[in-house]
């Protein structure tokens, strides 16, 4: 929360709004933290997290507990029980996320397409967090932006009657605007008053959650419904299904891939992206070089919010098809972990979102087929990010092993 007010009056002569005088260290450090380290650390982090998750599954499994009761009589039973528990769980996870020849329906067999469906909003909201990161801002507000994007998209999607294609385009634009407004509030406050974007975006999340409940009970409520749920979206406002009615995968996925390409271009090839990165690396230096830091903050939060808003659109027009209070689910916070795992690069975010989409798709099958609660996925995800954020920890875990094996060889 260092950016709440410029804390260095010694170096900053006039107490200007902190947008211009924010301490350079934090944003720079975040970016450095995320960018540094190799892809190897990411892979190892996933491995360690899966191992810990596996242990958790093993020690809470009833057969394992039973086998532990007679451990000294037959120690082998314990380990085989542990192996069975973990391999069943992760096996179900893997099959649910990719390909399961034993399932009865097409949808169940080809879980890979469910993975892509789940990944779609994660890609977009992950990009939102990534982009803000690169400008040194921590956008925790993906949840609120998704909600507001979905509210705006919904207002157009079930409130208006437009011809095909145009209706969908209008919905997409409305959603982007809704998210951009919500993100923009945080950007403007950061730029003009120095209010820390983390606090503002957290608070905006909750305000959006209350606002959507209010709207769903009043203006956006489906006529005749007693629940806070909106009428269904018009046919024309829905994303077309990519693989026919058997699968849920929709054209929103293409939108997400386009967004990845777009953000990659923005960050690496455009002047604006260069400004964002310069501001993220060192706002004071960027200011000195003649960039308008406050304008950068506002713009990056507008675009970031718009991306989250698009995630809301894909949820609404692609998956849920009518608006309810839980439209954002856990996507808002998953987006942060996705961006961290993706090391704040657009394509890294894309693959991280695929992994987390796989966790979501596989988690359901794991809960059904192996009786392991889907919450374990949250544990694994958060551990992955913890390990990735602390490369020295991962390295120390594996260096110890490496040293030992060297010693054994010698």
């Amino acid at each position, binding site marked *: 929360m260092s950016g709440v007010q410029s804390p260095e009056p010694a170096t900053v002569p006039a107490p200007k709004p902190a947008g211009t005088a924010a301490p350079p260290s934090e944003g720079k450090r975040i970016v450095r933290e995320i960018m540094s380290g190799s892809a190897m650390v990411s892979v190892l982090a996933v491995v360690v997290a899966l191992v810990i998750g596996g242990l958790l599954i093993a020690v809470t499994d009833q057969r394992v507990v039973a086998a532990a009761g007679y451990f000294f009589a037959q120690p082998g039973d314990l380990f085989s029980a542990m192996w069975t528990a973990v391999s069943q769980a992760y096996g179900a996870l893997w099959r649910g996320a990719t390909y399961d020849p034993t399932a009865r329906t097409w949808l169940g067999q080809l879980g890979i397409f469910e993975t892509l469906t789940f990944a779609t909003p994660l890609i977009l909201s992950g990009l939102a967090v990534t982009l803000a990161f690169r400008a040194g801002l921590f956008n925790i507000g993906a949840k609120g932006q998704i909600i507001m994007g979905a509210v705006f998209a919904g207002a157009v999607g079930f409130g208006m009657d437009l011809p095909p294609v145009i209706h969908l385009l209008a919905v997409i634009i409305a959603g982007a605007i809704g998210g951009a407004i919500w993100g923009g509030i945080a950007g403007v406050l950061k730029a003009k008053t120095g209010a820390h974007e983390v606090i503002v975006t957290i608070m905006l999340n909750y305000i959006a959650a209350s606002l959507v409940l209010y709207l769903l009970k009043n203006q956006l409520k489906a006529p005749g419904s007693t629940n806070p749920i909106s009428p269904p979206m018009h046919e024309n406002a829905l994303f077309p299904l990519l693989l026919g009615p058997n699968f849920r995968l929709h054209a929103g996925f293409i939108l997400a891939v386009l967004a990845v390409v777009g953000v990659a271009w923005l960050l690496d090839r455009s002047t604006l992206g260069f400004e964002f990165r310069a501001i993220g690396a060192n706002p004071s230096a960027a200011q000195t070089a003649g960039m308008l830091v406050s304008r950068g903050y506002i713009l990056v939060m507008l675009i970031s919010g718009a991306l989250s808003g698009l995630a809301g659109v894909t949820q609404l027009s692609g998956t849920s098809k009518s608006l309810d209070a839980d439209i954002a689910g856990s996507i808002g916070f998953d987006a942060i972990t996705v961006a961290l795992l993706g090391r704040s690069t657009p394509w890294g975010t894309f693959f991280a979102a695929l992994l987390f989409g796989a966790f979501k798709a596989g988690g359901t099958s794991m809960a059904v087929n192996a009786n392991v609660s889907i919450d374990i996925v949250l544990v694994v*995800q958060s551990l992955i990010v913890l390990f990735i954020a602390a490369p020295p920890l991962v390295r120390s875990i594996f260096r110890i092993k490496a040293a030992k094996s060297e010693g054994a060889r010698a």
Partner: protein
Amino acid sequence: MSAATLQESLTTDRLAVRSWRPPIILGVLALFAIVVFGILGPGGNATFRLSQDGDAWQVPNLVVPAQGFGWFAALICAALAVQAYLQTKNVGRPAKWVTMTFTVVFVIGLLVWIIGGTKTQNITVVGLFTGAMLITTPLVFGSLSGVLCERSGVVNIAIEGQLLAGAFTAALVSSMTGNAFAGLFAAALAGVLVSFLLAVFSIKYVVNQIIVGVVLNVLVSGLTGFLFEKIMKTKVNGATIFNQPAHLPDLPIPLLSEIPVLGPTFFRQSILGYLMIVLVIAIWFGLFRTRWGLRVRAVGEHPKAADTVGINVNRTRFLNVLAGGAVAGIGGAYFTLVAVSSFSKDMTGGLGFIALAALIFGRWNPIGAALAALLFGVAGNLQSILSLAGTPIDGQFLAMLPYALTILAVSGFVGKSRAPAADGEPYVKG
């Protein structure tokens, strides 16, 4: 604090930076009060029932004419807004008492307007406050945890996780032992454990503190959810024996508990309620009146200076974060040992983030945070009471109040809420 306030007053005096935001905001609010409370004020009387039937001392109901009082409050607000304008013009900023009085009068005016606008036009004040304490108590513990961490320079976004870990552990351990105090102790330990992770990652590995906090919340949510499914839902002889926590009884204080309104609110609580009051005062005293507190604040404001005079910055931070975890863990125990009689998934429901809001709105001061928590608790409880009564204002807008106020506070619209200068900055020697 002293150095920072000195610096602050120096800059404001010398450069005479005049912010017109406070008088403008107060003016807009006063205008709102005049229009809504006064001109559009509801007819009839708003009745505040101060006593319950069983009380020893019966106090007559407080009856106020809703619209008349609305005008009264609105005009005071308007006068205070003018005063704020004059002070800004002359001194550069409105005096503290002006904004404070304004807030109090505005809130009371709002309350009368809301009650006057309901169908029944009355409210049981005792019920309002005792219900509010169900929200306020964990909020206070959570925000105290935040105070301890952030005053030493470590941002604590993981309050939610600490509360949830405390709630889960308290439920599990007290179910297993049948002893509520064992559960309480375990809850404190669980909070310390979450804090330990926060401290190790943010102090030792210098990971961004906000990232760690966010991730820890997810981790605790996943872990408690997983264990809840695996352990607590397991039925033994048809009963979920691992989710039947013992209960901490209410301990009414003789005489004091008979005071109208205040008695049932503050002196008819469980041991955790009293512990909360003690902790608020103790932490305030500790931070602002003892050598320990001076050191902690020095570490949070200017770690390098603190290091220069021989204070071990990272050890101070580590210990403070751990202490904060214990406090939040105990606050989490309140959920399962006092408020509700069993654990349920994600039962803290975002209260940890409201605690963060209370901390900021209370300006990183234990007493301020506690008062903010009380305000947020009343707003939250009012929302649930009013959802049944049919009101002029939708409950969802009351629910937004803490968050909206916090945004106003951090963006400096009504007074500036300023974090410790080194909050969130890791300290690397050299």
